[in-house]
């Protein structure tokens, strides 16, 4: 706060990261990992990552600031954004992971979801936990999901934000894209020449008005609107006219029901790259019809904190609202051509409504509208914090429609791809890891488009196009993807080059594909879709998180259709690393890949589709969805009852339970025991033996259950116990996903 008011930047020479690139100024958190562990009271030998450590420090402050105690956590959600995850450790130990047994305990800390889990675990059990990964807009999208959950009545309090440390991986990645400046960054200046990287974490406590009142908590600000749109232009460049940015800001204003002229300040994404600042300027000039309110980018203070920037800058906006000042855009001196002129002197100003922009690679653009706490508006009270918290109010929403259809689902695996014929006679395999059988991608992708696509992207395009085609929809309102590890093949190429050849001459293509949101944004670019677009990366509930997002937005009436995907790929090297890290492949478990795309639509939208496609029949209905973090059996039982009740069902109506048992004997025994306890003598089904285990295998589970409902029969091969084989026609299947014993999801499907 004092630094913001006095124009004191935290950007300086590299001090902590071990890299040869000393020429780039950075905004590092001025603590070593050991110092952070000491502050948190974590043992020196505990497995942690820098992203998780920063996250814990921020979360601790947020909890304190909002007056929340650990006994309240089981009713509170935690949603974090990150892209780097545990890359700080993976880039140090990559060759060890391949060649020796050293440091193998860090393998399980690599993925984004692990960092969120680690951060959460330091404090206790939460009601639910998930991870957004939309590159530099991750934290902003975590805030949006939290708000949607509160508005849907799924929670009263959700802690949202992001954490990201600087790594050699993305410092070199941004360098390969030639967008790092060797001077302090100068957003919106004529001489701007790139960004400076930063790191940090910030969490905000979102709380419904009712809950905050009940607790006697005072809101620090209101989250009165938010928007998410996809630029759908290019994986690493923004469109010249800033379409995605424009749409995101416009949506935020519309949701808050306020006019552009009511906005007192915009905290711009303003990275300092020639491309971003031109594009963002155009979007602001267009939205405000030339009368742009005061704008500044606070990145010269912090550097670009990438996945955390959305929440860190939201905290700055809260401080500006509370203290009535305009944060200055440091290092600015010369107006850029066709650009906005930012706030160049710190100044006092009473603020009522401010916009906070966060844009990511792939055109994942989001904008938050924050308002002064006393302003009476509709949404959540923000109990923010990493540096300060506030509650936000949100009305609980009633929905117009309660039925959602799964119109189509397509998969690529070792079973015959993009077809359902395999279900009669599935392939049973005997290899330790399972490779998918790919269709001829030339039917879906031109050679020039294919030049930059790893197999995970090609599969995503093929399954998405086939699913859209089978759904009868020309377009969808939202594209939502889950992926545990993202484009692992390209990540591996980049890590390999970094580890063996050093920090020179790295290929930008590998880096740009390494972000998890490449898949979702590619689908938007391919289909010119400017709608809602996000990516989840949270271990075995990555796909489930994507489905939940769609489910919430259906309930809020925000979308009428969605393309939901689950994608993970495997390479031979990665398989060995996973196995060494004890992540997968125990006992009879096989490591696999997943590529599944599902198209959903609301009942009203489906009716419209029927008008032009009378032959169109949905696979099934989606009647319920719930996600929980480390639930007790009692909590699970309650949630099952609640879910069935709101779908107008009882357990007696459920014909089959689809489990995700995978061949890991210890885990499966506990899993099946829980299923028996929860569901009594319902016949239990399995599917992972046909596909192998992967973080997004649960998407294949949904696919299998939906196909069974459509076909009106359950193939013999799916029964867990051959004594339970039955020809009972499935009318209602409950999917019970239990991932690592930590996260559970329940999905109710009906014919």
């Amino acid at each position, binding site marked *: 706060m004092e630094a913001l008011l006095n124009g004191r930047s935290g950007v300086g020479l590299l001090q902590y990261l071990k890299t040869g690139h000393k020429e780039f100024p950075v905004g590092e958190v001025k603590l070593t990992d050991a110092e952070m562990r000491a502050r948190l009271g974590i043992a020196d030998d505990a497995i942690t990552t820098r992203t998780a450590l920063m996250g814990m420090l921020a979360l601790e402050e947020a909890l304190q600031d909002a007056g929340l105690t650990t006994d309240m956590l089981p009713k509170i959600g935690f949603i974090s954004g990150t892209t780097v995850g545990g890359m700080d450790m993976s880039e140090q130990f990559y060759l060890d992971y391949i060649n020796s047994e050293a440091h193998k305990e860090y393998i399980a800390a690599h993925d984004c979801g692990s960092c969120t889990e680690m951060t959460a675990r330091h404090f206790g059990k939460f009601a639910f936990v998930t991870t957004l990964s939309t590159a530099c807009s991750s934290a902003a999208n975590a805030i949006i999901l939290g708000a949607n959950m509160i508005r849907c009545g799924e929670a009263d309090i959700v802690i949202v934000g992001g954490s990201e440390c600087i790594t050699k991986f993305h410092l070199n990645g941004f360098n390969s894209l030639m967008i790092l400046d060797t001077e302090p960054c100068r957003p919106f200046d004529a001489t701007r020449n790139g960004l400076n990287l930063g790191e940090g974490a910030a969490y905000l406590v979102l709380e419904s008005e009712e809950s905050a009142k009940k607790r006697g908590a005072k809101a620090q600000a209101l989250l009165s609107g938010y928007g998410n749109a996809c630029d759908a232009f290019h994986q690493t460049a923004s469109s010249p006219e800033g379409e995605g940015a424009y749409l995101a800001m416009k949506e935020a204003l519309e949701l808050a029901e306020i006019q552009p002229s009511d906005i007192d300040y915009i905290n711009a994404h303003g990275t300092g790259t020639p491309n971003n600042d031109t594009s963002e300027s155009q979007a602001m000039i267009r939205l405000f019809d030339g009368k742009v309110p005061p704008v500044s980018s606070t990145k010269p203070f912090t550097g670009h904190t990438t996945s955390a920037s959305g929440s860190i800058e939201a905290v700055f906006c809260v401080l500006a609202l509370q203290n009535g000042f305009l944060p200055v855009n440091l290092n600015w001196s010369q107006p850029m051509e066709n650009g906005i002129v930012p706030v160049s002197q710190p100044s006092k100003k009473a603020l009522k409504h401010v916009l906070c922009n966060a844009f990511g690679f792939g055109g994942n653009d989001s904008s938050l509208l924050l308002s002064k706490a006393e302003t009476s508006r509709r949404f959540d009270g923000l109990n923010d914090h990493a540096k300060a918290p506030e509650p936000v109010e949100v009305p609980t929403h009633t929905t117009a429609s309660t039925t959602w259809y799964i119109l189509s689902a397509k998969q690529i695996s070792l079973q015959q791809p993009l077809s359902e014929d395999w279900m009669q006679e599935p392939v049973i395999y005997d290899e330790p890891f399972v490779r998918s059988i790919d269709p001829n991608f030339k039917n879906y992708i031109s050679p020039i488009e294919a030049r930059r696509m790893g197999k995970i992207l090609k599969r995503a395009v093929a399954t998405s196009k086939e699913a859209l085609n089978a759904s009868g929809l020309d377009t969808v309102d939202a594209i939502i993807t889950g992926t545990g590890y993202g484009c692992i093949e390209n990540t591996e190429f980049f890590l390999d080059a970094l580890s063996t050849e050093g920090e020179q001459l790295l290929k*930008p293509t590998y880096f740009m594909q390494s972000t998890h949101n490449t898949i979702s944004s590619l689908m938007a670019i391919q289909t010119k879709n400017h709608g809602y677009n996000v990516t989840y990366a949270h271990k075995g509930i990555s796909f489930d998180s994507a489905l939940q997002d769609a489910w919430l937005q259906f309930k809020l009436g925000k979308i009428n259709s969605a393309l939901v995907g689950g994608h993970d790929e495997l390479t031979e090297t990665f398989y060995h690393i996973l196995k060494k890290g004890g992540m997968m492949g125990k006992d009879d478990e096989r490591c696999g890949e997943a590529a599944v795309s599902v198209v959903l639509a609301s009942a009203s939208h489906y009716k419209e589709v029927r008008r032009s496609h009378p032959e169109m029949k949905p696979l099934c209905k989606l009647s319920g969805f719930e996600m929980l973090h480390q639930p007790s059996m009692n909590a699970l039982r309650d949630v099952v009852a609640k879910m069935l009740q709101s779908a107008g069902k009882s357990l007696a109506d459920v014909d089959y339970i689809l489990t995700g048992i995978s061949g890991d004997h210890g885990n499966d025994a506990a899993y099946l025991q829980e299923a028996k306890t929860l569901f009594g003598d319902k016949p239990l089904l399995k599917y992972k033996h046909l596909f192998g285990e992967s973080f997004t295998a649960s998407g294949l589970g949904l696919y299998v259950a939906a196909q069974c409902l459509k076909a009106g029969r359950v193939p013999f091969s799916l029964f867990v116990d051959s004594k339970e084989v039955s020809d009972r026609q499935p009318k209602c299947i409950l999917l019970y996903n239990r991932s690592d014993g930590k996260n559970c999801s329940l999905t109710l499907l009906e014919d």
Partner: protein
Amino acid sequence: MDDLIYTLKQQIIEALNLEDMKPEDIDENAALFGEGLGLDSIDALELIVLMEKNYGIKLKDPNQGKEIFKSVSVMADYISKNRTK
């Protein structure tokens, strides 16, 4: 020069992962970006890496690439005049 052009085409195909393309398929006088092959800014960055790796030519500013990467022949001409390896 013809040898350099042919080698360069092979290197471009490899660096940009242009599946199914052979050197003969690239017209050395056609535009690489926009109307011609249809390459974009990331490809330009890959070509910068290619020039540094194979010919020891360092470009500091991606905008310099606009002139140099007009076509394969223009690129070959620039390389032959500026190569350090």
